[in-house]
Every structure is written in C-alpha cells, then in structure tokens.
C-alpha cells in the first residue's frame, strides 16, 4: 500500500498542528463556535448528540495492521473502547473530548493517517472496491488512481468551500462494488478503442433528498488527463452549483438542471483550457504510485477453485456456510479474499471493539500480508488469504465474534448511527438493525433467502444508503415520534436503481414485522431459489408486496 514520503508526512503533521491552534483558540474563546465549526468540519470533527465524533479517513478503505492497532489504541485511550466503520470506508469515534483531538490527530499522523476533509463542503474520501487488486473481473487496479485523486483533492486550495460536500468513487471491474453511480463523480476504468485503459467519467449521482443516478459525460478519458478533468468538473460546480438552498446544492442538482449534455459541454470547455497544463499526469508519477500497489509476494501455489468448492460443502456446516458466503475467488491461484462480517446481533452494525481491532491486526499479519480493507457495507476484507489457511482463519474469527457467515445476506445490514448518536437524525436506526439481526438468526433461512441487501438510514441524508437497498428503511419524525418508510427495489450496482416507497410509514414496533412480511412474500412469489429478491421485485413490481402489507387500502 501507499507509503507516505516526507511531503505526505509533513502535510498531515502540519495539518494536525494547525488544528491544535484552532482548538486552542476555540477553548480560550478567541474564536466562537460559528467560526470554529467549518474548521473542525474540515478536520472531520462533528458535534453529535452525546459528544464529538471524529471521522478518520481510510483512503479507498485500505489499512495496514499497524494502523488497525493504532485505531485500537485510540479507542482505548481517548474513547469508549470501540470504533465504527462507515459506508464510505472511514472509521468514526463517537466520544472524543475536544482537547484530545489534536493529540489523536498526531497519533494518526504517526501511522500515516488523518481526518482531513472527511466532513465539510469539500472533497471527501475517495472510495473504491474492497476487492481492488485481487478481483478476477478487474480490468485494472483502481487504487493507484484513488491515491492520485487523494493527493490532488487533499488541501486543494480552490475547492475548500464548495456549495456542498463532494464524493468521488472509482471502480475497475465489471461489477460495481464501489457504488460509483451514486457518487458526485464516479470514475470507471474502461478499455479504450485501442485496448488501452482509461476512464469513463460519471457525474451527478447521489442519494439524500433527491436521489439520482450519475450520468456519463465522457465515455473515454485517457489516463493522463484524470486530474485536469476532475479539476474542470469541480471548477464548474464551484462556480455554478447552487448556494441558496442547502438541499439543492449538490452537483447532482446542477447536472439535473442543466442536463448531462450541457453540463458535460461546460466541463469540456473548461477542460480544453487546462488539459495540457502541468496537471497532466506523468508516467513517472503514475508508476511511482502504482508500485505501492504491486501484487503481494504471493507463494506459488496450485490453482484452488476445486478446493474452495469442496470446503464450501464442509462437514463443519458453519465453516462451509462461511466459505460459501464470505469467501471470494481471487486472481492469484491458491488465494482468496475473505469478507469479515462486522455484523453481530449484540453490537451496532459496523462497530469494532479495541480488543477486536488488536486481534484483527494480528490476524491480518498472520493471514493477509498485514493489510485489510473496509467495505462500504461496513465490513472488513482480508484480500489475500491462502485457501489452505481458511479453516484456521475461520476459527480465529469465530473466537472474536467475527465469523458470521452472512456477507450480502439479509443480516449483513447497512445502517447509519441514527438518532442514538447523530445530530442530523430523525429516528433511530441501530435498534431496527439489531432487531432484524436478532430475529433472523436461522442460517438456513438466510441462505435460502439468498442475496438481499437491507439498508437503513435515520434521516434523509442517507448515510445508510437506504435508497439503494433491495430493502430500504428510512426513519422519519412524525410529531416527535419515530416512524419508518419501507422501500423496495434499490440497487447500488452498475444497473443502479432507486428504491420505491411502498406506502405509509410504519411505527417503530411494526417495521421489522413489515420486513418479515416482505421476505415471506418474496419466498412465495419468486419463480425459483435462483431468483434473487431484486430480480423478483423487478419482475413483479411493488404490487404484490403492497397488497400484503396494506391490503387494498
């Protein structure tokens, strides 16, 4: 993975020092909260319901064991002993004291981490595919470009006060595990006319109040133009994005208002003027960064697909199930990628204790070359595990309560912190997630249900990606009480779709029952066990579900 050089290191150290000054001025009263707020947001520090929340950037989700140990240490020393994984591959701490935050940032800087621009109206963490570099269907590893985008976007002096937040995702495969169609800019690695790789540029996707699927404004962009093209998009947005209404300020609104064609025209006009500037990527720089993502020093092993098939049918049913659901084929013979489910009915989804974090660091060292990835489903991936080590790894994970075999199944919920923590929320989301995880524990039932994503948010900001869940739940406030809208048919894949609300919202004590009814209905009307929930919904529409839930009302 990328190693900071002296410049990177100095940049985060200076930023931590700058923030220390800002915190001191806040605590002394020299600056007031309304001046301090955008400054702390640019360092990822939110004021939530119960305390300050720090969002640590994990660039494209990639972590070293050293960094995981640091997370554990910070959780122990400064927080309440745990951290939370987010849908943008970041980690959040919920209980920090303001005066400790500069030291936390220094600790993070010592392991090449930071919280820069994880909040505020600026360019946020660039996210990517959790199987980058190892997936069989990968056209090219997106991570070097994600790192180049990170460096271009961090401390960008022109784009620190955009109309609204800005999120970029990049994917390099045929299946979109990075939800690029739901981002402000989605970058897709594609093959060009002569077989060389380049980028398809998508703009204007997003969820929230106005969910929209991104539009392509450039089918093929040669690689060396990546940064200048991004700069053009950002400049057009900075200058013309709406600033009069917070809920209409994202780039998707501008793209929608102008139309993709006109928006693309403006971008291309700006780009024409800067494409030959110093922003052009040099081969030297691309190679410098790419070499940090060279393949791991794999052992030369025989091909292992048959072995994996056999393990999936293991007489140890729990292990077999885990292999079937949580293990992904790998481009290197003898290796596989393991999804570690951070979805345990006893704790909020995505939460990891300091004990678990320390243990995971050791396991990463032992099983996966000392690295792990955070997924946008709030899980972890060990991307380079020997197939012949799977049984041992499973045992070690199970001992940590991290061996749940539910990847991409119903109980692999995506869930925001919600009203239990978040200042923006209208309703709680974690109790709903826990109720679902606690109710649907029959593993055979879950496997029979197959792949179905349930995603829930405590407010319209959609941090839980509820618009693109096969089953989406949105918490709302009705006269001070919590209600839940149920929507079906969302998808974050390349065939992205926004879920449709079924009908009247359910009270808190009825929503999980409604979900159960939806699932039972699916099982009744699907045409075979091979037809996933989403396929059934797309075939038959919302009607059968509406009817069962609401009768003929």
């Amino acid at each position, binding site marked *: 993975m990328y190693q900071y050089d002296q410049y990177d290191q100095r940049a985060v150290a200076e930023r931590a020092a700058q923030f220390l000054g800002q915190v001191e001025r*806040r605590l002394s009263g020299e600056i007031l*909260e309304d001046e301090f707020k955008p400054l702390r947001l640019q360092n990822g520090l939110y004021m939530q319901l*119960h305390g300050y929340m720090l969002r640590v950037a994990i660039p494209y989700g990639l972590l070293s064991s050293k960094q995981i140990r640091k997370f554990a240490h910070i959780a122990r020393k400064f927080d309440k*002993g*745990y951290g939370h994984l987010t849908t943008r591959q970041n980690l959040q701490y919920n209980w920090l004291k303001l*005066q400790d935050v500069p030291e936390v940032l220094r600790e993070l800087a010592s392991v090449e981490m930071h919280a820069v621009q994880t909040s505020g109206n600026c360019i946020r963490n660039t996210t990517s595919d959790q199987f980058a570099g190892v997936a069989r269907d990968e056209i090219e590893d997106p991570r070097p470009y994600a790192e180049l985008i990170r460096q271009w976007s961090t401390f960008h002096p022109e784009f620190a006060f955009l109309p609204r937040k800005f999120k970029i995702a990049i994917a390099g495969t045929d299946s979109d595990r990075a939800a690029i169609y739901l981002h402000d800019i989605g970058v897709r690695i594609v093959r060009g006319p002569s077989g060389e790789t380049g980028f398809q540029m998508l703009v204007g996707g997003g969820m929230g109040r106005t969910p929209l699927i991104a539009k392509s404004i450039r089918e093929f962009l040669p690689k060396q133009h990546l940064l200048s093209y991004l700069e053009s998009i950002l400049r057009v947005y900075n200058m013309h994005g709406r600033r009069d209404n917070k809920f209409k300020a994202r780039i998707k609104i501008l793209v929608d208002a102008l139309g993709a064609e006109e928006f693309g025209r403006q971008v291309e006009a700006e780009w024409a003027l800067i494409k030959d500037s110093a922003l052009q990527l040099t081969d030297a720089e691309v190679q410098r960064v790419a070499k940090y993502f060279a393949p791991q020093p794999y052992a030369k092993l025989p091909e292992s697909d048959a072995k994996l098939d056999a393990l999936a049918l293991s007489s140890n049913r729990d292990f077999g199930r885990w292999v079937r659901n949580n293990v992904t084929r790998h481009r290197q013979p003898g290796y596989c990628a393991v999804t570690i489910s951070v979805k345990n009915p006893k704790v*909020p989804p995505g939460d990891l204790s*300091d004990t678990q974090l320390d243990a995971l660091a050791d396991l990463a060292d032992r099983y996966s070359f000392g690295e792990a990835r955070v997924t946008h489903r709030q899980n972890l991936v060990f991307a380079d595990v020997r197939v012949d080590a799977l049984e041992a790894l499973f045992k070690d994970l199970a001992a940590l309560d991290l061996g749940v075999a539910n990847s991409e199944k119903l109980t692999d919920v995506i869930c925001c912190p919600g009203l239990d923590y978040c200042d923006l929320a209208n309703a709680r989301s*974690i109790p709903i997630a826990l109720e679902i995880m606690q109710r649907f524990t029959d593993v055979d039932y879950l496997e029979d249900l197959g792949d179905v994503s349930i995603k829930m948010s405590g407010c319209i900001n959609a941090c839980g990606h509820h618009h693109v869940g096969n089953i989406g739940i949105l918490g709302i*406030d009705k006269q001070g009480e919590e209600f839940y809208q149920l929507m079906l048919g969302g998808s974050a894949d390349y065939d992205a779709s926004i879920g449709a609300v079924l009908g009247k919202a359910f009270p808190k004590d009825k929503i999980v029952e409604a979900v159960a009814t939806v699932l039972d209905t699916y099982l009744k009307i699907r045409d075979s066990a091979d037809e996933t929930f989403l396929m059934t919904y797309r075939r038959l529409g919302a009607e059968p579900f509406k009817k069962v839930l609401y009768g003929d009302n």
Partner: protein
Amino acid sequence: MATAKRPSGYLLTGNFTETGGPAYRDPNDRWVRDAFSAALFPTEADAKAVADRARASEQRVVSDPYVCEVALTEAGGFEFKSARERIRAGGPTTPVRRPDRS
C-alpha cells in the same frame, strides 16, 4: 385518541464545548449534564433571551445553546416532546459497552 395538550415549559440546552456532550442550564446559571436539573422558563422569550446571552458570552463552556420546549407534568416535572431530546438526555439506547470488555 386525543389527549389534552399539556402546558409547555422551556429550558436551555446546548453541547459542552469540552466534551461535546449535552448540557442543560440549571437554576443557578450553571451548565450541567443532568437534564432533569434544568431550569424551566415560563415563556419561550424568557428562555431565548438567556440563550442569546449564553451564545454571546459563554462559548468557552457551551456551544450552540438553544431553547427546547418541553411538556410540563402534573407532578411538577417535565417530559421531552421528541425522541431526539429524550435520547440526548438519556444517552444512546443501544449497547455502548462492548460485550467483550470487562
């Protein structure tokens, strides 16, 4: 089923600058953690005047003070009107203590 609307009271709340935790202004003009020690103002205007003063001069202690309307109970206490304020006062309703920690 309609219930008789209970009379409203108003209290002042905000976040402690140091910890970010919820703060409530008590009858002695101190900011405290315990919501149910909060001073109750009879009118919103009364409370707002104090909130404005706090916002102007007490920012070292508390950030973003605001007025919160509550429902007065017959027993002389009050209840919060929204889930949000109940959770601020009472803490997260989900497990904070990790099961694997002592």
